[in-house]
């Protein structure tokens, strides 16, 4: 099947975002072959400025920062993707139930979502992470707690929109079970927008996760997690390279997914999509 790239995707931002995101995925997969040093080995001169042999410099323990940044992709990127997938799953399922069943199911789920929305995200995530104990897994759980309601809300709205449509009702009249109806008739009509939200959310999730690690509530040393590496740079303030490069790594990954998500949203929004098509003609 040969399909042409939709017009909206042939945009410089989407291309840049796609290329950078892909590059980071490749780095995450190939880090052991790309990294010039062992990310944990403390055998280089301490706090050496960037230069030949160690292009991003070394940290206070004599570890190669370039290698740590490359290996960091293996820590942060899979965890962030898993986190967003979990949020979509949990939030989507709860939101779909709320929208489909209505009444007390809806009330209960959406009031809990409202409560989570009543807190600023980092503060709630910080409390959850601190209470569970500092570890990367717990940080992921903490971010999950604050991330699912957005999906629940969007999915619920979309399900409410299709619930009463003829094709769903006729499916039910044909004797579809609740789950079959949800799966066959409702789900395909809500996945698109939820996936856009998910793409846009990858950046936010990574920011939150690395923020928790920066506060010391996520990755534990010596893990080459980017947020924790920036925190390490705070201690050796005048060696700017220690914090700069892991920060740039976070920035480029988040930016790439935001470029992608932004274009995706334009492409799927009927109003902007039409405008783009008109321009393309």
């Amino acid at each position, binding site marked *: 099947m040969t399909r042409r790239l939709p017009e909206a995707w042939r945009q410089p931002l989407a291309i840049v975002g796609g290329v950078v995101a892909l590059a980071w995925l490749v780095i995450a997969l190939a880090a052991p072959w790309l990294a010039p040093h062992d990310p944990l080995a403390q055998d280089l001169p301490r706090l050496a400025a960037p230069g030949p042999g160690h292009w991003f410099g070394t940290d206070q323990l004599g570890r190669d920062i370039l290698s740590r940044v490359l290996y960091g992709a293996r820590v942060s990127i899979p965890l962030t993707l898993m986190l967003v997938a979990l949020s979509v799953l949990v939030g989507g399922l709860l939101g779909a139930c709320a929208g489909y069943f209505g009444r007390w199911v809806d009330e209960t789920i959406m009031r809990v979502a409202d409560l989570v929305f009543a807190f600023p995200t*980092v503060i709630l995530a910080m409390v959850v992470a601190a209470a569970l104990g500092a570890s990367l897994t717990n940080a992921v759980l903490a971010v999950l707690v604050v991330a699912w309601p957005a999906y629940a809300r969007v999915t619920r709205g979309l399900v409410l929109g299709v619930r009463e449509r003829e094709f769903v009702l006729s499916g039910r009249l044909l004797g579809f079970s609740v789950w079959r109806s949800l799966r066959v008739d409702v789900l395909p009509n809500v996945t698109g927008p939820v996936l856009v939200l998910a793409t846009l959310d990858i950046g936010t999730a990574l920011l939150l996760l690395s923020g928790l690690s920066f506060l010391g509530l996520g990755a534990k040393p010596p893990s080459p997690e980017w947020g924790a590496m920036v925190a390490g740079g705070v201690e050796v303030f005048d060696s700017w390279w220690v914090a700069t490069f892991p920060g740039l790594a976070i920035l480029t990954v988040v*930016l790439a997914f935001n470029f992608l998500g932004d274009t995706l949203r334009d492409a799927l929004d009927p109003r902007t999509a039409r405008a783009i098509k008109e321009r393309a003609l």
Partner: protein
Amino acid sequence: MTVSGDVSGADTPGPPPAAAQRGGRARVRRHPLARFLLRRVLIAILLAWGITLVTFVLTNLVPGDPAAANLGQRALGDPAIVAQWRQEHGLDKPLPQQYLIHLGGLLHGDLGTSQQSHRPVSQDLAETVPATLELAGAAIVVSLVLGVAFGVVAALRRDRLTDHALRVLSLIGISVPTFWLALVAFYVFFYRLQITPGSGRIDPGLTAPPPVTGLATVDSALAGQWDVFASAVGHLLTPALVLALYTIGLLTRFTRSAVLEVLGQDYVRAARAKGLPGRVILFRYVLRSALVPIITVAGLAFGSLLSGTVLVEAIFAWPGVGQYAYKSATTLDLPAVMGVGLVVGGVYLVINLIVDVLYGVIDPRVRLQ
């Protein structure tokens, strides 16, 4: 994709947190606005109670042990000391009873005693909250002014170079890790260029003005200490700008799409056909309608500012609630954590209430729902 017709749901900012609760029952009677306000306030009170419940449950049902976080190794080895410590802090009673005691205290303005500072949590918060409000308040003002201005410019110059440049800039704004940006700004402007003052709220050599509002800028101006005022503004500038970058990006994006949406309306075309000057059309016709979604996002943006303060305060040694929250969360200082959750949740709640009310004031249709 077969779903394109439904996408707008993900595109718009979504209803404000409490808007989902807006029932369709109320019919417009004599005072629609008063009824609307009353309903919003009642929902806010319910949510406030919910916040007390969530903070309590969160800080109690999770597997962290506050005794382990607060007592030393040797004290932990002695069951008698641990038991006495738990009794002192009311942790030996059943949970529902602990919650009722906690709730009763709250009604009397008693937030308990911090296990770390050994002072009333309310006193700790009274000192830290104004510092954070000053920081977040300055940041939201900057974000609103710049974000709305950039968004309007981007919409008016749609698809031109300015629009594309602003799009990239606003996307960068929402992608920069705040904690990293704070560090970079501190390093570049304070350490290298030495054009901004260092950490804290005023220069260490100056005496703080007598506290009236708790806001260093306002208090120093009230006291007529202009050197302190200048110092306070200088100290506020960098962290507020760092904090604002994310919300500037957010507001630029939403203002742009809100203004574009209104620009396409028939009544704007009619106003233009009538020959009204562009400025009148922009301010009286376009911005007024576009303000509704912008205000919603601004309310949400304030929440993200409060979140951001945790990360920014750490770098700039800003003695605000963010640092206090961090310290109490990592030491599992439960009364302090609950106090922070309550106050921050409460501030957020009030902001959302204001947003809802503004919503009703600006857009009469909202009141009729």
